[in-house]
Protein backbone atom coordinates (compact mmCIF):
# COMPACT_ATOMS: atom_id res chain seq x y z
CA UNK A 1 0.00 0.00 0.00
CA UNK A 2 2.97 2.31 0.54
CA UNK A 3 5.59 2.51 -2.16
CA UNK A 4 8.49 4.95 -1.83
CA UNK A 5 10.91 5.25 -4.73
CA UNK A 6 14.18 7.18 -4.44
CA UNK A 7 12.70 9.64 -2.00
CA UNK A 8 14.99 12.62 -1.39
CA UNK A 9 14.31 15.33 1.16
CA UNK A 10 16.60 18.29 1.52
CA UNK A 11 16.53 21.22 3.87
CA UNK A 12 18.27 24.52 3.39
CA UNK A 13 20.83 24.68 6.19
CA UNK A 14 23.23 27.64 6.22
CA UNK A 15 22.45 28.59 2.62
CA UNK A 16 23.08 25.06 1.44
CA UNK A 17 20.67 22.33 0.54
CA UNK A 18 21.41 19.44 2.83
CA UNK A 19 19.94 16.09 1.91
CA UNK A 20 18.37 14.55 4.96
CA UNK A 21 16.87 11.64 3.03
CA UNK A 22 19.16 10.47 0.25
CA UNK A 23 17.06 8.21 -1.93
CA UNK A 24 14.86 5.94 0.14
CA UNK A 25 13.20 2.94 -1.48
CA UNK A 26 10.66 1.29 0.73
CA UNK A 27 7.51 -0.72 0.20
CA UNK A 28 5.12 -1.45 3.01
CA UNK A 29 2.33 -3.91 2.39
CA UNK A 30 -1.20 -3.84 3.73
CA UNK A 31 -1.30 -5.32 7.22
CA UNK A 32 2.42 -5.08 7.91
CA UNK A 33 3.83 -4.01 11.26
CA UNK A 34 7.08 -2.18 10.59
CA UNK A 35 9.54 -0.73 13.08
CA UNK A 36 11.82 2.00 11.81
CA UNK A 37 15.05 2.30 13.76
CA UNK A 38 18.24 4.25 13.47
CA UNK A 39 20.44 6.76 15.24
CA UNK A 40 19.23 10.20 16.16
CA UNK A 41 19.15 12.63 13.27
CA UNK A 42 19.20 9.87 10.68
CA UNK A 43 15.91 11.07 9.15
CA UNK A 44 13.33 8.72 10.66
CA UNK A 45 10.88 11.45 11.57
CA UNK A 46 11.37 13.12 8.23
CA UNK A 47 10.51 9.85 6.54
CA UNK A 48 7.44 9.36 8.71
CA UNK A 49 6.20 12.86 7.93
CA UNK A 50 6.47 12.17 4.23
CA UNK A 51 4.63 8.86 4.57
CA UNK A 52 1.98 10.67 6.64
CA UNK A 53 1.44 13.33 3.96
CA UNK A 54 2.41 16.08 6.40
CA UNK A 55 5.38 16.89 4.21
CA UNK A 56 6.33 16.45 0.58
CA UNK A 57 9.57 14.92 -0.65
CA UNK A 58 12.01 17.12 -2.59
CA UNK A 59 12.15 14.45 -5.25
CA UNK A 60 11.13 10.84 -5.70
CA UNK A 61 7.90 9.03 -6.12
CA UNK A 62 5.43 8.21 -3.37
CA UNK A 63 2.45 6.01 -4.08
CA UNK A 64 -0.20 5.56 -1.42
CA UNK A 65 -2.85 3.04 -2.38
CA UNK A 66 -1.45 3.31 -5.88
CA UNK A 67 -2.07 7.05 -5.99
CA UNK A 68 0.72 9.58 -6.60
CA UNK A 69 0.75 11.75 -3.51
CA UNK A 70 2.69 14.52 -5.27
CA UNK A 71 -0.31 15.09 -7.50
CA UNK A 72 -2.68 15.76 -4.61
CA UNK A 73 -3.37 19.32 -3.57
CA UNK A 74 -3.34 20.58 0.02
CA UNK A 75 -6.99 19.87 0.67
CA UNK A 76 -6.73 16.36 -0.73
CA UNK A 77 -3.72 15.72 1.48
CA UNK A 78 -5.72 16.89 4.48
CA UNK A 79 -8.45 14.46 3.48
CA UNK A 80 -5.96 11.61 3.18
CA UNK A 81 -4.60 12.40 6.66
CA UNK A 82 -8.13 12.50 7.97
CA UNK A 83 -9.47 9.30 6.39
CA UNK A 84 -6.52 6.97 5.79
CA UNK A 85 -3.90 7.83 8.40
CA UNK A 86 -3.81 7.90 12.18
CA UNK A 87 -0.92 9.66 13.90
CA UNK A 88 0.52 8.83 17.30
CA UNK A 89 3.20 11.16 18.63
CA UNK A 90 5.85 10.91 21.31
CA UNK A 91 4.42 13.99 23.04
CA UNK A 92 0.84 12.67 22.78
CA UNK A 93 -0.33 16.00 21.27
CA UNK A 94 -3.72 16.03 22.95
CA UNK A 95 -5.47 19.41 23.07
CA UNK A 96 -5.19 20.39 26.73
CA UNK A 97 -8.60 22.09 27.07
CA UNK A 98 -10.61 19.23 25.61
CA UNK A 99 -11.47 16.12 27.60
CA UNK A 100 -10.53 12.67 26.36
CA UNK A 101 -13.81 12.18 24.51
CA UNK A 102 -13.62 15.54 22.72
CA UNK A 103 -10.01 14.89 21.77
CA UNK A 104 -10.96 11.58 20.22
CA UNK A 105 -13.85 13.24 18.39
CA UNK A 106 -11.58 15.73 16.59
CA UNK A 107 -10.84 13.68 13.44
CA UNK A 108 -14.56 12.94 13.13
CA UNK A 109 -15.36 16.66 13.22
CA UNK A 110 -13.10 17.19 10.21
CA UNK A 111 -14.66 14.13 8.57
CA UNK A 112 -18.00 15.97 8.84
CA UNK A 113 -19.69 13.35 11.01
CA UNK A 114 -22.79 14.46 12.93
CA UNK A 115 -22.51 14.94 16.68
CA UNK A 116 -24.33 11.80 17.78
CA UNK A 117 -22.37 9.50 15.53
CA UNK A 118 -19.15 11.21 16.60
CA UNK A 119 -19.84 10.51 20.21
CA UNK A 120 -20.67 6.87 19.61
CA UNK A 121 -17.57 6.25 17.51
CA UNK A 122 -15.34 8.08 19.99
CA UNK A 123 -16.72 6.05 22.90
CA UNK A 124 -16.13 2.86 20.91
CA UNK A 125 -12.54 3.89 20.25
CA UNK A 126 -11.93 4.76 23.90
CA UNK A 127 -13.48 1.43 24.81
CA UNK A 128 -11.01 -0.33 22.58
CA UNK A 129 -8.03 1.22 24.35
CA UNK A 130 -9.65 0.49 27.72
CA UNK A 131 -10.35 4.09 28.73
CA UNK A 132 -14.11 4.42 28.47
CA UNK A 133 -14.16 5.24 32.20
CA UNK A 134 -11.86 8.23 31.68
CA UNK A 135 -13.59 9.95 28.81
CA UNK A 136 -14.50 13.08 30.76
CA UNK A 137 -10.98 13.61 32.05
CA UNK A 138 -8.81 16.41 30.76
CA UNK A 139 -5.37 15.37 29.48
CA UNK A 140 -3.60 16.72 32.56
CA UNK A 141 -5.76 14.46 34.71
CA UNK A 142 -4.39 11.38 32.93
CA UNK A 143 -1.12 9.47 33.30
CA UNK A 144 1.36 9.31 30.42
CA UNK A 145 0.24 5.84 29.41
CA UNK A 146 -3.41 6.88 29.55
CA UNK A 147 -2.70 9.96 27.46
CA UNK A 148 -1.02 7.84 24.82
CA UNK A 149 -3.98 5.47 24.82
CA UNK A 150 -6.32 8.42 24.25
CA UNK A 151 -4.04 9.47 21.40
CA UNK A 152 -4.27 5.96 19.94
CA UNK A 153 -8.05 6.05 20.27
CA UNK A 154 -7.98 9.34 18.36
CA UNK A 155 -5.75 7.78 15.70
CA UNK A 156 -8.07 4.82 15.13
CA UNK A 157 -11.45 6.55 15.51
CA UNK A 158 -11.81 7.25 11.80
CA UNK A 159 -10.82 3.65 11.03
CA UNK A 160 -7.71 4.45 8.99
CA UNK A 161 -5.82 1.63 7.35
CA UNK A 162 -2.46 3.10 8.38
CA UNK A 163 -1.17 4.11 11.78
CA UNK A 164 2.07 6.06 12.01
CA UNK A 165 3.68 6.32 15.42
CA UNK A 166 6.86 8.37 15.92
CA UNK A 167 8.47 7.14 19.13
CA UNK A 168 5.12 6.46 20.81
CA UNK A 169 6.83 5.03 23.90
CA UNK A 170 9.61 7.59 24.06
CA UNK A 171 8.02 9.35 27.03
CA UNK A 172 6.80 6.24 28.83
CA UNK A 173 8.32 3.73 31.27
CA UNK A 174 9.01 0.15 30.22
CA UNK A 175 5.89 -1.38 31.67
CA UNK A 176 3.60 1.17 30.07
CA UNK A 177 5.55 0.90 26.83
CA UNK A 178 4.76 -2.79 26.69
CA UNK A 179 1.05 -2.10 27.20
CA UNK A 180 1.06 0.41 24.37
CA UNK A 181 2.90 -1.96 22.05
CA UNK A 182 0.43 -4.72 22.89
CA UNK A 183 -2.32 -2.35 21.85
CA UNK A 184 -0.58 -1.77 18.51
CA UNK A 185 -0.14 -5.52 18.08
CA UNK A 186 -3.86 -6.01 18.66
CA UNK A 187 -4.74 -3.33 16.12
CA UNK A 188 -2.31 -4.90 13.66
CA UNK A 189 -3.97 -8.25 14.13
CA UNK A 190 -7.24 -6.60 13.21
CA UNK A 191 -5.66 -5.65 9.88
CA UNK A 192 -4.33 -2.14 10.38
CA UNK A 193 -0.96 -1.38 8.81
CA UNK A 194 1.38 0.05 11.42
CA UNK A 195 4.72 1.82 11.22
CA UNK A 196 6.53 2.69 14.45
CA UNK A 197 9.71 4.70 14.86
CA UNK A 198 11.63 3.61 17.93
CA UNK A 199 15.04 3.44 19.55
CA UNK A 200 14.19 0.50 21.79
CA UNK A 201 14.73 -3.08 20.79
CA UNK A 202 11.99 -4.36 23.08
CA UNK A 203 9.57 -2.12 21.24
CA UNK A 204 10.83 -3.12 17.81
CA UNK A 205 10.41 -6.77 18.75
CA UNK A 206 6.65 -6.35 18.47
CA UNK A 207 6.99 -5.59 14.78
CA UNK A 208 7.23 -8.17 12.07
CA UNK A 209 9.74 -6.13 10.16
CA UNK A 210 12.57 -3.88 11.20
CA UNK A 211 13.92 -1.19 8.88
CA UNK A 212 17.16 0.52 9.73
CA UNK A 213 17.85 4.06 8.55
CA UNK A 214 21.28 5.59 8.83
CA UNK A 215 22.22 9.04 7.58
CA UNK A 216 19.24 9.27 5.26
CA UNK A 217 19.74 5.88 3.68
CA UNK A 218 17.91 2.62 4.27
CA UNK A 219 20.70 0.31 5.34
CA UNK A 220 18.90 -2.80 6.51
CA UNK A 221 15.48 -4.34 6.00
CA UNK A 222 14.94 -7.29 8.27
CA UNK A 223 11.92 -9.45 7.64
CA UNK A 224 13.12 -12.32 9.78
CA UNK A 225 10.07 -11.88 11.93
CA UNK A 226 6.95 -13.55 10.60
CA UNK A 227 5.58 -11.55 7.72
CA UNK A 228 1.99 -10.88 8.58
CA UNK A 229 1.37 -8.73 5.56
CA UNK A 230 -0.28 -9.65 2.32
CA UNK A 231 0.64 -7.83 -0.82
CA UNK A 232 -2.07 -5.35 -1.55
CA UNK A 233 -0.53 -3.83 -4.63
Amino acid at each position, binding site marked *: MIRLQSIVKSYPIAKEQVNVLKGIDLTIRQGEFTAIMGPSGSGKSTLMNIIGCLDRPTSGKYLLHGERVSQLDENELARVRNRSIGFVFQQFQLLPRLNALKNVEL*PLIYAGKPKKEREELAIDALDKVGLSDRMNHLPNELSGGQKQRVAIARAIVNQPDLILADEPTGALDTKTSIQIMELFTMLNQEGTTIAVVTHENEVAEHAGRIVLVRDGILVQDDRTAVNKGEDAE
Partner: protein
Amino acid sequence: MSVIENIKMALSSLRAHKMRSILTMLGIIIGVGSVIAVVAVGQGGEAMLKSQIVGEGNTIELFYMPSDEELQTSPDVMSPFTQEDLRAVESIPEVTQVVATSSEFGSVRYRENTLDSSITGINQAYLDVNELEVASGRNLLSADFLGGRRTAIVSASFQEELFDGKNPLGQVVYVHSQPVEIVGVLKKPTGMLAFGTNDMYLPWNTWRTVFATNDISQVTLQADNAEDLQKAGKKAAGMLNQMHHTEEAYQVMNMEEIAAGIGQVTRVMTIIIGSIAGVSLLVGGIGVMNIMLVSVTERTREIGVRMSLGATRGQILFQFLVESVTLTLIGGAVGIMLGGSAAAIVSYFAGWPALVSWPVIVGGLLFSMVIGVVFGILPANKASRLNPIESLRYE
Protein backbone atom coordinates in the same frame (compact mmCIF):
# COMPACT_ATOMS: atom_id res chain seq x y z
CA MET B 1 -17.56 21.21 9.89
CA SER B 2 -20.51 23.39 10.72
CA VAL B 3 -20.61 27.03 11.72
CA ILE B 4 -22.29 26.12 15.01
CA GLU B 5 -19.43 23.72 15.76
CA ASN B 6 -17.01 26.54 15.10
CA ILE B 7 -18.93 29.00 17.26
CA LYS B 8 -18.98 26.53 20.14
CA MET B 9 -15.27 26.01 19.75
CA ALA B 10 -14.70 29.76 19.62
CA LEU B 11 -16.75 30.32 22.78
CA SER B 12 -14.86 27.65 24.68
CA SER B 13 -11.50 29.06 23.71
CA LEU B 14 -12.66 32.57 24.62
CA ARG B 15 -13.84 31.21 27.95
CA ALA B 16 -10.44 29.65 28.54
CA HIS B 17 -8.98 33.16 28.71
CA LYS B 18 -11.86 35.04 30.32
CA MET B 19 -9.98 38.09 31.48
CA ARG B 20 -8.18 38.54 28.21
CA SER B 21 -11.36 38.08 26.20
CA ILE B 22 -13.25 40.60 28.32
CA LEU B 23 -10.48 43.19 28.09
CA THR B 24 -10.32 42.72 24.34
CA MET B 25 -14.07 43.04 24.07
CA LEU B 26 -13.93 46.20 26.16
CA GLY B 27 -12.31 48.02 23.24
CA ILE B 28 -15.18 46.98 20.98
CA ILE B 29 -17.79 47.65 23.66
CA ILE B 30 -16.56 51.20 24.17
CA GLY B 31 -16.24 51.79 20.43
CA VAL B 32 -19.63 50.43 19.41
CA GLY B 33 -21.28 51.84 22.54
CA SER B 34 -20.09 55.39 21.93
CA VAL B 35 -21.01 55.32 18.25
CA ILE B 36 -24.48 54.00 19.08
CA ALA B 37 -24.94 56.58 21.83
CA VAL B 38 -23.87 59.46 19.59
CA VAL B 39 -26.10 58.36 16.73
CA ALA B 40 -29.09 57.76 19.01
CA VAL B 41 -28.72 61.07 20.83
CA GLY B 42 -28.22 62.83 17.50
CA GLN B 43 -31.30 61.29 15.94
CA GLY B 44 -33.33 62.01 19.06
CA GLY B 45 -32.22 65.63 19.05
CA GLU B 46 -33.04 65.98 15.39
CA ALA B 47 -36.50 64.51 15.91
CA MET B 48 -37.12 66.90 18.78
CA LEU B 49 -36.01 69.97 16.87
CA LYS B 50 -38.14 69.00 13.89
CA SER B 51 -41.19 68.32 16.01
CA GLN B 52 -40.79 71.71 17.64
CA ILE B 53 -40.78 73.40 14.26
CA VAL B 54 -43.66 71.56 12.72
CA GLY B 55 -45.40 71.43 16.07
CA GLU B 56 -46.80 68.20 17.34
CA GLY B 57 -50.31 69.22 16.31
CA ASN B 58 -49.38 69.98 12.69
CA THR B 59 -49.70 73.71 13.09
CA ILE B 60 -48.18 76.65 11.32
CA GLU B 61 -48.09 80.24 12.36
CA LEU B 62 -48.89 83.16 10.08
CA PHE B 63 -46.34 85.94 10.34
CA TYR B 64 -46.80 89.60 9.73
CA MET B 65 -43.56 91.13 8.54
CA PRO B 66 -44.34 94.32 6.66
CA SER B 67 -41.75 96.20 4.64
CA ASP B 68 -40.88 99.77 5.66
CA GLU B 69 -43.37 101.37 3.26
CA GLU B 70 -46.10 98.99 4.28
CA LEU B 71 -45.39 99.81 7.88
CA GLN B 72 -46.26 103.43 7.27
CA THR B 73 -49.66 102.61 5.81
CA SER B 74 -50.64 100.07 8.44
CA PRO B 75 -49.99 101.41 11.89
CA ASP B 76 -50.97 98.46 14.06
CA VAL B 77 -48.04 96.06 13.93
CA MET B 78 -49.01 94.24 17.08
CA SER B 79 -52.50 93.25 15.91
CA PRO B 80 -52.27 92.68 12.21
CA PHE B 81 -55.17 90.27 11.78
CA THR B 82 -58.82 91.27 11.54
CA GLN B 83 -62.01 89.27 12.01
CA GLU B 84 -62.45 89.14 8.23
CA ASP B 85 -58.95 87.74 7.86
CA LEU B 86 -59.87 85.01 10.29
CA ARG B 87 -63.03 84.07 8.42
CA ALA B 88 -61.17 84.08 5.09
CA VAL B 89 -58.46 81.82 6.39
CA GLU B 90 -61.05 79.49 7.91
CA SER B 91 -62.55 78.97 4.46
CA ILE B 92 -59.38 77.39 3.05
CA PRO B 93 -60.26 73.70 2.50
CA GLU B 94 -56.98 72.26 3.89
CA VAL B 95 -57.40 74.15 7.12
CA THR B 96 -59.01 72.14 9.91
CA GLN B 97 -58.70 74.70 12.70
CA VAL B 98 -57.70 78.30 13.01
CA VAL B 99 -56.28 79.31 16.32
CA ALA B 100 -56.47 83.00 17.06
CA THR B 101 -54.87 84.65 20.02
CA SER B 102 -54.29 88.16 21.18
CA SER B 103 -51.82 88.91 23.86
CA GLU B 104 -51.06 91.85 26.07
CA PHE B 105 -48.82 92.22 29.03
CA GLY B 106 -50.63 94.00 31.81
CA SER B 107 -51.29 94.15 35.51
CA VAL B 108 -54.01 92.18 37.25
CA ARG B 109 -55.42 93.33 40.57
CA TYR B 110 -56.88 91.19 43.31
CA ARG B 111 -58.05 93.22 46.30
CA GLU B 112 -55.01 95.33 47.19
CA ASN B 113 -52.44 93.12 45.35
CA THR B 114 -51.41 93.51 41.74
CA LEU B 115 -49.44 91.16 39.51
CA ASP B 116 -47.84 91.64 36.11
CA SER B 117 -48.98 88.86 33.83
CA SER B 118 -49.33 88.00 30.21
CA ILE B 119 -53.02 88.13 29.34
CA THR B 120 -54.03 86.10 26.33
CA GLY B 121 -57.33 86.01 24.59
CA ILE B 122 -57.89 82.65 22.91
CA ASN B 123 -60.56 81.21 20.66
CA GLN B 124 -62.02 77.79 21.27
CA ALA B 125 -59.80 76.16 18.65
CA TYR B 126 -56.84 77.03 20.84
CA LEU B 127 -57.92 74.42 23.35
CA ASP B 128 -58.07 71.74 20.65
CA VAL B 129 -54.57 72.47 19.43
CA ASN B 130 -52.74 73.36 22.63
CA GLU B 131 -53.28 71.31 25.70
CA LEU B 132 -54.14 73.45 28.66
CA GLU B 133 -54.39 70.97 31.48
CA VAL B 134 -56.38 72.16 34.42
CA ALA B 135 -55.24 71.12 37.89
CA SER B 136 -58.18 72.53 39.79
CA GLY B 137 -61.47 74.13 38.82
CA ARG B 138 -62.53 73.78 35.21
CA ASN B 139 -61.33 74.62 31.74
CA LEU B 140 -62.97 77.27 29.55
CA LEU B 141 -66.12 75.91 27.93
CA SER B 142 -68.04 76.64 24.72
CA ALA B 143 -70.42 78.77 26.72
CA ASP B 144 -67.53 80.93 27.89
CA PHE B 145 -66.34 81.46 24.33
CA LEU B 146 -69.72 82.03 22.71
CA GLY B 147 -71.16 84.23 25.40
CA GLY B 148 -67.98 86.15 26.04
CA ARG B 149 -68.28 85.38 29.71
CA ARG B 150 -65.97 87.08 32.09
CA THR B 151 -64.13 83.91 33.09
CA ALA B 152 -60.43 83.08 33.05
CA ILE B 153 -57.96 80.33 33.78
CA VAL B 154 -54.55 81.13 35.18
CA SER B 155 -51.17 79.43 35.48
CA ALA B 156 -49.96 77.85 38.67
CA SER B 157 -47.36 80.50 39.25
CA PHE B 158 -50.01 83.20 38.71
CA GLN B 159 -51.99 81.58 41.51
CA GLU B 160 -48.97 81.39 43.79
CA GLU B 161 -47.95 84.99 43.28
CA LEU B 162 -51.28 86.77 43.32
CA PHE B 163 -53.20 84.56 45.74
CA ASP B 164 -50.22 83.46 47.81
CA GLY B 165 -51.19 79.89 47.01
CA LYS B 166 -54.72 80.26 48.38
CA ASN B 167 -57.69 78.97 46.43
CA PRO B 168 -58.44 81.46 43.65
CA LEU B 169 -61.48 79.65 42.25
CA GLY B 170 -64.52 81.89 42.12
CA GLN B 171 -62.47 84.97 43.03
CA VAL B 172 -62.82 88.06 40.93
CA VAL B 173 -59.74 89.90 39.71
CA TYR B 174 -59.58 93.15 37.77
CA VAL B 175 -57.93 93.56 34.39
CA HIS B 176 -58.08 97.11 33.02
CA SER B 177 -60.60 97.75 35.82
CA GLN B 178 -62.84 95.08 34.33
CA PRO B 179 -63.87 92.23 36.59
CA VAL B 180 -63.00 88.66 35.56
CA GLU B 181 -63.76 85.51 37.52
CA ILE B 182 -61.10 82.80 37.85
CA VAL B 183 -62.60 79.37 37.13
CA GLY B 184 -59.53 77.16 36.74
CA VAL B 185 -55.84 76.79 37.55
CA LEU B 186 -53.46 75.09 35.16
CA LYS B 187 -51.08 72.27 36.04
CA LYS B 188 -47.49 73.17 36.83
CA PRO B 189 -45.33 72.66 33.81
CA THR B 190 -42.95 69.69 34.06
CA GLY B 191 -39.59 69.05 32.47
CA MET B 192 -36.16 70.45 33.09
CA LEU B 193 -36.43 73.42 30.78
CA ALA B 194 -39.92 74.44 31.87
CA PHE B 195 -40.29 77.28 34.32
CA GLY B 196 -43.42 78.90 35.60
CA THR B 197 -44.65 82.08 33.98
CA ASN B 198 -47.57 84.24 34.99
CA ASP B 199 -50.28 83.58 32.45
CA MET B 200 -53.95 84.33 32.22
CA TYR B 201 -56.22 83.01 29.47
CA LEU B 202 -59.54 84.65 28.58
CA PRO B 203 -62.08 83.71 25.94
CA TRP B 204 -61.28 85.85 22.93
CA ASN B 205 -64.64 87.64 23.04
CA THR B 206 -64.00 88.61 26.64
CA TRP B 207 -60.49 89.78 25.82
CA ARG B 208 -61.75 92.09 23.12
CA THR B 209 -64.23 93.72 25.49
CA VAL B 210 -61.60 94.12 28.17
CA PHE B 211 -58.99 95.60 25.83
CA ALA B 212 -61.53 97.25 23.54
CA THR B 213 -60.01 96.06 20.27
CA ASN B 214 -61.13 93.70 17.54
CA ASP B 215 -57.73 92.82 16.22
CA ILE B 216 -55.88 89.59 16.60
CA SER B 217 -52.15 89.40 17.17
CA GLN B 218 -51.46 85.81 16.26
CA VAL B 219 -53.07 83.31 13.88
CA THR B 220 -52.07 79.68 13.73
CA LEU B 221 -53.43 77.18 11.23
CA GLN B 222 -53.86 73.49 11.74
CA ALA B 223 -54.14 70.85 9.00
CA ASP B 224 -54.33 67.08 8.88
CA ASN B 225 -50.76 66.56 7.75
CA ALA B 226 -47.56 68.44 7.09
CA GLU B 227 -48.16 68.57 3.34
CA ASP B 228 -51.64 70.10 3.62
CA LEU B 229 -50.29 72.43 6.23
CA GLN B 230 -47.67 73.83 3.92
CA LYS B 231 -50.29 74.28 1.18
CA ALA B 232 -52.76 75.92 3.52
CA GLY B 233 -50.09 78.23 4.86
CA LYS B 234 -49.14 79.44 1.39
CA LYS B 235 -52.78 79.97 0.42
CA ALA B 236 -53.49 81.87 3.61
CA ALA B 237 -50.49 84.14 3.20
CA GLY B 238 -51.44 84.86 -0.41
CA MET B 239 -55.01 85.55 0.55
CA LEU B 240 -54.09 87.95 3.32
CA ASN B 241 -51.57 89.83 1.17
CA GLN B 242 -54.30 90.30 -1.41
CA MET B 243 -56.86 91.47 1.12
CA HIS B 244 -54.45 93.94 2.70
CA HIS B 245 -52.88 95.00 -0.61
CA THR B 246 -49.48 94.09 0.62
CA GLU B 247 -46.71 92.32 -1.22
CA GLU B 248 -45.15 89.98 1.25
CA ALA B 249 -46.19 91.24 4.62
CA TYR B 250 -48.00 88.03 5.48
CA GLN B 251 -45.78 85.01 5.46
CA VAL B 252 -45.49 81.47 6.67
CA MET B 253 -42.34 79.60 7.53
CA ASN B 254 -41.24 77.07 4.98
CA MET B 255 -41.04 74.19 7.39
CA GLU B 256 -39.67 71.73 4.87
CA GLU B 257 -36.65 73.92 4.27
CA ILE B 258 -36.10 74.50 7.93
CA ALA B 259 -36.56 70.85 8.83
CA ALA B 260 -34.15 69.85 6.10
CA GLY B 261 -31.66 72.43 7.32
CA ILE B 262 -31.88 71.20 10.87
CA GLY B 263 -31.58 67.61 9.66
CA GLN B 264 -28.44 68.56 7.82
CA VAL B 265 -26.90 70.32 10.78
CA THR B 266 -27.64 67.51 13.22
CA ARG B 267 -26.45 64.92 10.73
CA VAL B 268 -23.16 66.70 10.23
CA MET B 269 -22.77 66.95 14.00
CA THR B 270 -23.57 63.28 14.37
CA ILE B 271 -21.06 62.33 11.70
CA ILE B 272 -18.32 64.44 13.28
CA ILE B 273 -18.84 63.16 16.81
CA GLY B 274 -19.59 59.69 15.49
CA SER B 275 -16.33 59.49 13.61
CA ILE B 276 -14.43 60.56 16.69
CA ALA B 277 -16.17 57.70 18.49
CA GLY B 278 -15.38 55.53 15.48
CA VAL B 279 -11.68 56.00 16.14
CA SER B 280 -12.10 54.14 19.42
CA LEU B 281 -13.73 51.35 17.43
CA LEU B 282 -10.67 51.23 15.21
CA VAL B 283 -8.46 50.99 18.29
CA GLY B 284 -10.71 48.23 19.59
CA GLY B 285 -10.36 46.38 16.30
CA ILE B 286 -6.59 46.61 16.46
CA GLY B 287 -6.81 45.20 20.00
CA VAL B 288 -8.75 42.23 18.63
CA MET B 289 -6.14 41.69 15.94
CA ASN B 290 -3.35 41.87 18.51
CA ILE B 291 -4.97 39.34 20.84
CA MET B 292 -5.81 37.00 17.99
CA LEU B 293 -2.18 37.08 16.83
CA VAL B 294 -1.07 36.20 20.36
CA SER B 295 -3.66 33.46 20.45
CA VAL B 296 -2.48 31.98 17.14
CA THR B 297 1.11 31.91 18.38
CA GLU B 298 0.09 30.32 21.67
CA ARG B 299 -1.95 27.69 19.90
CA THR B 300 0.59 26.82 17.24
CA ARG B 301 0.72 23.25 18.49
CA GLU B 302 -3.08 22.98 18.49
CA ILE B 303 -3.06 24.12 14.88
CA GLY B 304 -0.43 21.50 14.02
CA VAL B 305 -2.45 18.78 15.74
CA ARG B 306 -5.63 19.78 13.96
CA MET B 307 -3.86 19.78 10.62
CA SER B 308 -2.36 16.35 11.25
CA LEU B 309 -5.86 15.09 12.07
CA GLY B 310 -7.17 16.29 8.73
CA ALA B 311 -8.12 19.96 9.13
CA THR B 312 -7.70 21.85 5.88
CA ARG B 313 -6.11 25.28 5.79
CA GLY B 314 -9.53 26.70 5.03
CA GLN B 315 -11.00 25.10 8.14
CA ILE B 316 -8.22 26.52 10.32
CA LEU B 317 -8.74 29.96 8.78
CA PHE B 318 -12.46 29.74 9.39
CA GLN B 319 -11.98 28.61 12.98
CA PHE B 320 -9.93 31.66 13.89
CA LEU B 321 -12.13 33.99 11.89
CA VAL B 322 -15.20 32.74 13.74
CA GLU B 323 -13.33 33.30 16.97
CA SER B 324 -12.53 36.94 16.24
CA VAL B 325 -16.04 37.57 14.91
CA THR B 326 -17.53 35.99 18.03
CA LEU B 327 -15.35 38.28 20.11
CA THR B 328 -16.42 41.43 18.28
CA LEU B 329 -20.05 40.35 17.99
CA ILE B 330 -20.41 39.86 21.75
CA GLY B 331 -18.55 43.12 22.30
CA GLY B 332 -20.83 44.82 19.80
CA ALA B 333 -24.00 43.47 21.41
CA VAL B 334 -22.90 44.64 24.87
CA GLY B 335 -21.83 47.96 23.35
CA ILE B 336 -25.23 48.45 21.75
CA MET B 337 -26.95 47.80 25.08
CA LEU B 338 -24.67 50.16 27.00
CA GLY B 339 -24.68 52.81 24.26
CA GLY B 340 -28.48 52.57 24.01
CA SER B 341 -28.82 52.96 27.77
CA ALA B 342 -26.45 55.94 27.76
CA ALA B 343 -28.50 57.54 24.97
CA ALA B 344 -31.71 56.88 26.90
CA ILE B 345 -30.27 58.56 30.00
CA VAL B 346 -29.00 61.58 28.07
CA SER B 347 -32.31 61.91 26.25
CA TYR B 348 -34.26 61.64 29.48
CA PHE B 349 -32.43 64.57 31.02
CA ALA B 350 -32.43 66.57 27.81
CA GLY B 351 -36.12 65.88 27.37
CA TRP B 352 -36.14 64.48 23.88
CA PRO B 353 -36.95 61.04 22.54
CA ALA B 354 -34.21 58.37 22.66
CA LEU B 355 -33.98 56.85 19.23
CA VAL B 356 -32.21 53.50 19.21
CA SER B 357 -33.87 52.23 16.07
CA TRP B 358 -33.73 48.71 14.68
CA PRO B 359 -31.59 49.78 11.72
CA VAL B 360 -29.08 51.17 14.21
CA ILE B 361 -29.04 47.92 16.20
CA VAL B 362 -28.78 45.68 13.16
CA GLY B 363 -26.23 48.01 11.61
CA GLY B 364 -24.22 47.97 14.83
CA LEU B 365 -24.18 44.17 14.92
CA LEU B 366 -23.27 43.87 11.25
CA PHE B 367 -20.55 46.43 11.71
CA SER B 368 -19.16 44.50 14.70
CA MET B 369 -19.02 41.41 12.51
CA VAL B 370 -17.22 43.34 9.81
CA ILE B 371 -14.68 44.54 12.39
CA GLY B 372 -14.20 40.92 13.46
CA VAL B 373 -13.60 39.80 9.89
CA VAL B 374 -11.37 42.73 8.95
CA PHE B 375 -9.15 42.51 12.02
CA GLY B 376 -9.41 38.73 12.30
CA ILE B 377 -8.38 37.88 8.77
CA LEU B 378 -4.69 38.58 9.31
CA PRO B 379 -4.29 36.33 12.40
CA ALA B 380 -6.54 33.66 10.89
CA ASN B 381 -4.54 33.71 7.70
CA LYS B 382 -1.34 33.40 9.69
CA ALA B 383 -2.76 30.37 11.50
CA SER B 384 -3.83 28.68 8.29
CA ARG B 385 -0.39 29.10 6.74
CA LEU B 386 1.52 27.39 9.52
CA ASN B 387 3.58 24.40 8.61
CA PRO B 388 2.04 21.39 10.41
CA ILE B 389 5.37 19.69 11.19
CA GLU B 390 6.97 22.78 12.65
CA SER B 391 3.77 23.56 14.54
CA LEU B 392 3.75 20.12 16.13
CA ARG B 393 7.32 20.68 17.34
CA TYR B 394 6.53 24.21 18.65
CA GLU B 395 7.34 24.61 22.34
